[in-house]
């Protein structure tokens, strides 16, 4: 076996181990986790009331290509994905501030790969739990999620969505190497996902000019693509959406690597 193949194999093994450890950590505190998920129940209940009232007032069963059932399940998927992502910016900021990063960097494992493996494992676990919690509200109010191939689209696009989400957060989080405090930037990123990312309102229901802007931003690949495809797989071009996710993954991947490469040279750790 040559050296490159061996290194790759070792990297994959390490990544798998990190993912497994993260998952075990999540399972250790599942009661606490479910308790915290209760807030999702409330938010979704409020959304069901809001959208039911809006549809009642409109007097039409379909608005902007969405039935009430589709819009409620769309919101379940976007909320489940949003709340699935661990607070990466806060974690890296903390590592930089308290010096833990010194230990992390000396380990024979890529710093970015470590965080990606941990992020994806935790996010997927949380996503599944949130889907269950969200279903407890959506199902009784608007009926079963009978979306056929939409579920397949959701599964496929969610991996890419969480990857793009990780990369977006990583760009912001790595700024901690220069400025330490990245809460403000993280906050702006979150709000962009809430609005132009289509978390609260599908992009199809936004004004024409804003839809054109959203098409050029990476945020639609995180929430809008998987949720829209899940509730309406027939109207979605899965291949095109996967292509957009791949393009953003490549672009942001290069950006994250470059930011990390420059940032780690500037980093001064005292103690740790």
């Amino acid at each position, binding site marked *: 076996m040559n050296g490159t193949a061996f290194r790759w194999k070792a990297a994959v093994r390490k990544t798998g181990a990190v993912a497994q450890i993260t998952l075990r950590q999540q399972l250790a505190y599942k009661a*606490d986790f479910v*308790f*915290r998920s*209760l*807030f999702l129940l*409330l*938010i979704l*209940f*409020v959304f069901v*009331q*809001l959208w*039911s*009232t*809006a549809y009642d*007032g*409109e007097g039409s069963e379909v*608005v*902007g290509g969405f039935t009430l059932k589709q819009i409620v399940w769309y919101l379940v998927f976007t909320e489940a994905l949003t709340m699935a992502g661990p607070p990466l910016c806060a974690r890296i900021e903390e590592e930089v501030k308290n010096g833990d990063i010194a230990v992390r960097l000396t380990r024979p494992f890529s710093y970015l790969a470590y965080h990606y493996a941990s992020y994806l494992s935790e996010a997927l676990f949380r996503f599944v739990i949130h889907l269950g919690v969200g279903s407890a509200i959506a199902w009784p109010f608007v009926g079963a999620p009978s979306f056929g191939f939409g579920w397949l689209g959701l599964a496929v696009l969610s991996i890419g969505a969480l990857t793009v989400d990780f990369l977006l957060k990583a760009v912001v989080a790595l700024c901690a190497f220069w400025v330490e*405090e990245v*809460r*403000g930037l993280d*906050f*702006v990123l979150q*709000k962009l996902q*809430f*609005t132009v990312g289509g978390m*609260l*309102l599908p992009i199809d*229901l*936004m*004004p024409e000019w*804003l839809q054109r802007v959203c098409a050029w931003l990476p945020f639609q690949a995180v929430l809008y693509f998987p949720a829209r495809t899940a509730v309406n797989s027939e109207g979605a071009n899965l291949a095109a959406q996967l292509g957009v996710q791949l393009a953003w993954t490549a672009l942001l991947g290069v950006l994250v690597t470059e930011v990390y490469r420059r940032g780690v040279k500037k980093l001064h750790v005292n103690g740790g």
Partner: protein
Amino acid sequence: MSMAGKFGSVIRFLLTCWKVNLASALEYRTSFFLLAGMMFINNLMWLFFWSLFFHRFPVIHGWRLEDVMMLWAVGSGGFGWACVLFGNFPRIAAIVSSGQLDVYMSQPKPVLLNVLASRMSVTAAGDFVFGIVIYAMVGNHTFTGALAFAAGLLISGCLYISVMVIAGCFAFYVGNSEGIAGQVFNSFLALSTYPSDIFKGLTRIALFTIVPAGFISYMPIGLLRSFDPVFAGWSIGVTLLLGVGGALLFKAGLRRYSSGNALAMRS
């Protein structure tokens, strides 16, 4: 000491607390303005969502975009002044369960007031400014309109404080109730920022009883757009009831409080 003397002493104490808190916050001026600005942007993004929503659905059960903007003005403004002047109100459960009450009990001042006023939330200054800016943009600028808005701010701020004091008092009875108090806090905030008229039946009843967020979220209609004396009377009554109830519950809780031997400097 006479009643007037006691009252004067409490006011002087509060003014000193606020002066010291402000000086402390302004010590990190950049951080202060950055955090306050963040909250302002946060609220602005929510209004951006609502403007998109109302672009698609111009009227929701009689509510227009201006009403929701006023709901945010009165809600964030009330929350803002409450957090700036009495910034510890969302943290009572944490303070009680971690034994940090000791330091307040050792001082010759009303314990609850001392706890509440000993912290200033800098981010909340952005909430308060946001409320005022939105009122300046879409509010009723007549004398009665300004009076109604000021009353709305006062009632909403007092409701936020009272509800969280009551939720925080659970810690005296069930031990660590930070999780429950956190859920109450988030739920109350969330419910008070959506138009009350989207809720029907039992939920609507609950909104004006168990979780009295309805007294904030109905304000744009019942107090600001047109003055409804019944709603105004109930709002004031419920606010007073919860305020007094919270203070009594805290007082009763103090008798059950076990010291954590955590006598330390307040930070």
